[in-house]
Each structure stands twice: as C-alpha cells, then as structure tokens.
C-alpha cells in the first residue's frame, strides 16, 4: 500500500532516470514551473490525491480493524529464535544477497564522486568536492539547519499527538487521528502545490521564507512519527500509566516520566525519519524554495539535469555523511533521556 503511494507520488527518481516516460508527479512540476500553469498543476494534483486517498482510506478502514495489547505491566519474555538450519540458511543468503546489491548501489555514489567522469575517465580527483563546497556550501548548511529544526519539533509533536489519540477521549479525536496521517497518503508534489496556493497571498504570506520549508518538512514527516507512536502506545497496557497517576503523578508527569521513556524507540524512530526525510525531501519543497534558500536535493537534481554526475555524487555523499552523523547524535541524545535503552523491553 505504502509502496504504491510512494511510487505513484515519486518525483526524484523519474525526473533523474525517467527518460521518455512521464509520471504524474513530474507532470505536475512541469506544468507549474515550466509553463506557470498553476490551474493545470492543481488539477493534476487532484488526480494524484484521489488515487492516493482512495487507497489510504481503504487501508485505514479495512486493514486496521484489529486491536492488540502486547506489552503488559508483566513485561514480556525473550523472543524465540529459529534454529533450524534449512530455514535460516536460505533466508539468510537471500537477505545477504539483497543487502549486498543495496550496499553496492550506495557505494557507487561516493565512488562516483572521486573520479573525473564516470564511464570515461576513472582517474582520482577531488575536484567535485572542491566545486561542491564552493558553490553548494549554503545549500548544505541551509538544508541541515532546516532539518535539524524540524526533526525535534516533529518528534515531540508526533509523540504528543500519538498520546492524545491513543489515551485521551475528546471531541474531534478521530478527526485529528485521520488528518495527522493523511500526510503520508498525499503525495509531496501535491503538498507543495497546496502550500504555494495557500501561503502565496494574504492573510498568511510565507512563500519563500524558511518557515514554509520547515512547516512543509514537519507536515510531511510527522505522520510516520505519529503512526509509530500510536502503534507502540497501543501495545502498552494503559494500567501502567494509571498506576503512575494513582501514585500521585499528574498528566504531564505521567507523560514525561512513564509514557515518553516507554515509547522512546518510537520517538527516536520519528526523529530519525523526520531528519532523513527532510534532508532528502524533494517533491514537496521543489515549489517552495527561493533564491534565498537552496536545498541539497534540489542542487543534486540541478547537477543531474546539466549532466554533472560527479558533482551530484559529491553532494549526495555529503548528504549521506551528514545524515549518518545526525543519526548518531540523535541516538546519543535520546539515550540520555531518562534511562538507558536496554531497560526497555518492548517486544
């Protein structure tokens, strides 16, 4: 389901390698930027949204009708490992094979950034990096700062919304539940168009500001944090929180001392997902950038369009390195929150 929506809404890959095939998402972009035909772009967006929303609603109301509680206050036993060799070996090999292909594809990117011209001249060079840093420094810094601002907001907001959805009963709860997750189903291109249409004219004019990019990042990545928060919370016995409340803790204390540490893995997941997604976002923000702010992914796309694959690879490599450093930092930071993560047994 998710894969389908992601594919139909994918923008980056078809533009870079699509060749003669035209996908809906690319079409929207071309109409909006190439022909300045906002109406046509909006119409195409509606088609995209319709297809995605239909699938989303289908999945929400037909596939999610089960409920479960697996983490009770009793805490669970260790999981059982499959020991039979005839089962574990073939599956192991298959996974290994798939992993090697994926790793190899990624390894080509940094490799490509160190050679003069991929496919023709394989001699070692640092030119691409020199070029990348000289002209792309601002893009690198902007992207990292925007992502670093939006990730924590997304993570915390996501957990709070998840907590409210699962644990509290209030008017409009199911509406919040629905709208918070709809962001997954709506393709990024459509969000981008929507933001331009909404914030290009008064009362709120945000087009071209950093705020609109950060807001887009948050809106785009928060559903995943909420989803994983909701899933984790649904597996935690509510009487654990009731016990804390019975011992004198108010709602805020219960959330910070009991709920948050228990859903820390989901929190960390939401944080990392948000950061990565923001760093690599393309479809939503391609409409929102301005001369003031450049984003890494868009720089990469520009380089690909003019055929400078080496520089594009160099940018991509820098992007990957930043993401990995950020993940490490987030792991450490979240580890400092409350207690060590070994103490949490959530499976």
């Amino acid at each position, binding site marked *: 389901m998710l894969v389908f929506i992601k594919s139909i809404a994918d923008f980056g890959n078809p533009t870079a390698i699509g060749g003669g095939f035209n996908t809906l998402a690319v079409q929207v972009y071309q109409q909006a930027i190439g022909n300045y035909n906002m109406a046509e772009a909006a119409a195409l967006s509606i088609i995209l949204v319709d297809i995605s929303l239909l699938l989303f609603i289908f999945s929400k109301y037909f596939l999610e009708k089960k409920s479960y509680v697996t*983490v009770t*206050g009793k805490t669970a036993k260790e999981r059982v490992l499959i020991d039979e060799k005839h089962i574990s070996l073939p599956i192991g090999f298959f996974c290994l094979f798939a992993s090697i292909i994926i790793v190899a594809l990624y390894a080509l990117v940094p490799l490509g950034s160190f050679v003069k011209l991929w496919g023709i001249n394989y001699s070692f060079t640092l030119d691409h990096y020199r070029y990348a840093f000289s002209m792309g420094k601002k893009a690198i810094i902007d992207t990292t700062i925007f992502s670093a601002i939006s990730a924590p907001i997304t993570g915390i907001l996501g957990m709070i919304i998840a907590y409210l959805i699962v644990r509290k009963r209030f008017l409009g709860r199911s509406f919040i539940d629905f709208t918070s997750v709809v962001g997954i189903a709506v393709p990024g291109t459509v969000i981008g168009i929507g933001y331009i249409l909404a914030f290009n004219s008064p009362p709120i004019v945000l087009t071209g500001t950093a705020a609109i990019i950060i807001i887009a990042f948050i809106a785009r990545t928060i559903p995943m944090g909420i989803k994983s928060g909701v899933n984790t919370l649904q597996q935690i016995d509510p009487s654990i929180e009731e*016990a804390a409340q*019975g011992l004198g*803790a108010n709602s805020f204390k219960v959330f910070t001392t009991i709920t948050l540490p228990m859903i820390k893995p989901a929190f960390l997941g939401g944080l990392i997902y948000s950061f990565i997604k923001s760093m690599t976002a393309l479809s939503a923000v391609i409409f929102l950038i301005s001369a003031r702010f450049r984003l890494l992914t868009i720089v990469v796309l520009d380089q690909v369009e003019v055929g400078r694959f080496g520089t594009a690879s160099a940018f991509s490599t820098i992007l990957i390195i930043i993401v990995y450093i950020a993940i490490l930092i987030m792991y450490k930071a979240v580890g400092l929150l409350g*207690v060590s993560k070994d*103490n949490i047994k959530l499976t």
Partner: protein
Amino acid sequence: MKESKNVILRNVIKEFKGHNNEGIFRAVDNISVTINPGEFVTLLGPSGCGKTTTLRMIAGFETPTAGEIILGDENINNQPPNKRDIAMVFQSYALFPHYNIYENIAYGLRIKKMDPKLIDKKVSNIIDLVGLKGLEKRNPGQLSGCQQQRVALARALVMEPGVLLFDEPLSNLDAKLRVYMRTEIRRIQQELGLTSIYVTHDQAEAMSLSDRVIIMNKGKIEQVGTPQEVYQQPATEFIADFIGTANFVDGVIKEIKDDYVMVQIVNSVAKVPLKGDGSFKAGEKVRVVIRPESIDVGEEGKFEGKITLSTFMGNVQEYYVEVGDYTLFVEASNPSGRKIYEVSDNVKLDILEESMHLIKLS
C-alpha cells in the same frame, strides 16, 4: 503509619454509552455501602457485574454518572486519581518497565518530592515487609510473577494510603502461589490495619481474605455480609449458587416456632433453624438451600434415594443422588474409611438440618 480511612458509596450509578453511542449500558446500578476504617472488603461477582467499575470509580479512573463517593469525610467525586489518598494494585501488576524495583517502589514518593533519605528508609522498610530484599536493582522483567506482584503491592503500600485497592491482583498467578500470596496480603493488611477493597471473581479468595464480602450481580449489590453469612445464609438463589455449590429443593412451611420452622421437602419434614432473617407464614412456599457437604449418604436417614453418579475425587467422594424429582449433589468427605456406593445403589440420605437455609420466593 497514618490512620486508615472509611469509604462510603451513596446511590452510585455508572452508565456507559454503547458502541456508536447507541444505547446506554448501566454498569453500576445505584449501589450504597459503607466500608469501615481498617476493614478488608471484597467485591465479589461474575465478570460484568460492575465490581471493577466500582473499584475504578473509587480510584478515580471513572467518574460516577450519579451518586456520591466519600473518602474519610470528603466527597471525592471530582478529585482526579493523583489527588486521592488511595493506592491501587493492578491485575497486570502495571510495573514501570524502565525503572528497577527500587525506583518502581520509590516512584510515588519521588513524585511527592520527599526527602531522599526518608524515601530510602521507607522503601527499605517496605521491601523488608513484602520480602523482596536483594532484588532492589533488578528490572521488572527479571522477576517472577509472584515477585512482580509483591513489587506492585510494595509500590502501593509505601504511599501509606488511606485506602488500598486491589483489582484481581492474583488472577495471573498459578493456583499454589495464589493461595500463598493471599495469605501474605492478609498478613500485611492486618499488620498495617489498612482499609482494603479487593475485587475478585474467585470466591475462595474472597472468603479467605475478607472481613466482609459484597456480592454484586448485574450492577447491583445482592448481599453484604461476613464470609460465614454469605455462605450459610445467602440472601438469594444467585448467591447460594455463586458461593460454593448448592442444591435447591422446593419446600412448604408447615409450622412456625420461635427459632425454627418445620418445612415439607420431597416426602419428609425437616426442622430448619431460623437465623434472624425470616418472617415466614405457614403454607408459604420456599426454596431450601442444601450444601453438598451437609448431606450424608448411608443406611440411615429421612430421605430415600438412588445413586446416579459416583466419582472419587481424593479428599471427597462425589455422588449424584436421585431423590424424588430432584438430583442432589453430595460430597462425602474422607472416603478412605467409608463405604463407597456405586451407581444405582439404593441409599438413605441424612441431611444436617441445622445447615439448611430458606430463601423466600419472590
């Protein structure tokens, strides 16, 4: 230790909306009861009788639709759970998985911002009391169910609450540990003189723990009494059937004396003592409760019967005996020294008339 408090429920009603807001389900239907300081009271009843809802209202996790809940001399209807002088032990233990045993127990005191030295003293005292010494640094996942339940108990006790609530705390333990833990709970409760309200559907637990038992059915209180009272003088057929096993035989009052009545049952007359609750008229039809252990199978007795089933259970021999239109269930204790009857043997039944109990037909 602080003084224990009393709990008074006055005409308490709790209604839930049905699914899709259709229809209203009354989980607790106008109950009133007074629980005295230091008393151990059990809410006993089949699942869905409203006992857990009642407990959760006292704890503050549910708000009554109508009626009053009074703790000490204060109406606590609108007090949130964290403000109530009440602690609760949950069925699922509800330990905090990310804290060790010590921190689990100290949690409530830390929330109160108590002096760390005092916390340390109180926690160690409680750990001694419930027998968890040496396990302070463990995590909940490393303990057995029985130990986890002790932690849950300690965590509630350390708060020195005015009232302690138990929501079926032993239902996740196996039979032997359950018996062991319930004597432990009783011992600790007696030692501290703590007002305790205990929810269970297990009548053995209710009988062994309680000063008084409150029997609930379909949201209403059926009877409040000591374990002896509810077993020996059940107010309704439901109670007689729910607490232990009972035979029901229809009878007619023949004669009324000061402290006993003569009752015609099957084809004989029994002399049944009155235990204060009856005002019967001659000729009135009644239902007679006969406990299986008060019937003796042998060669002598007022009633003639025929064995239809005979089962050896170790400590007792169980019989089903056809007597007139009824089939009576009999538990003959200590079968090793006695004659065992087989199916279709003709026997006489000697029923202990002092232990018979009369229920009015409504």
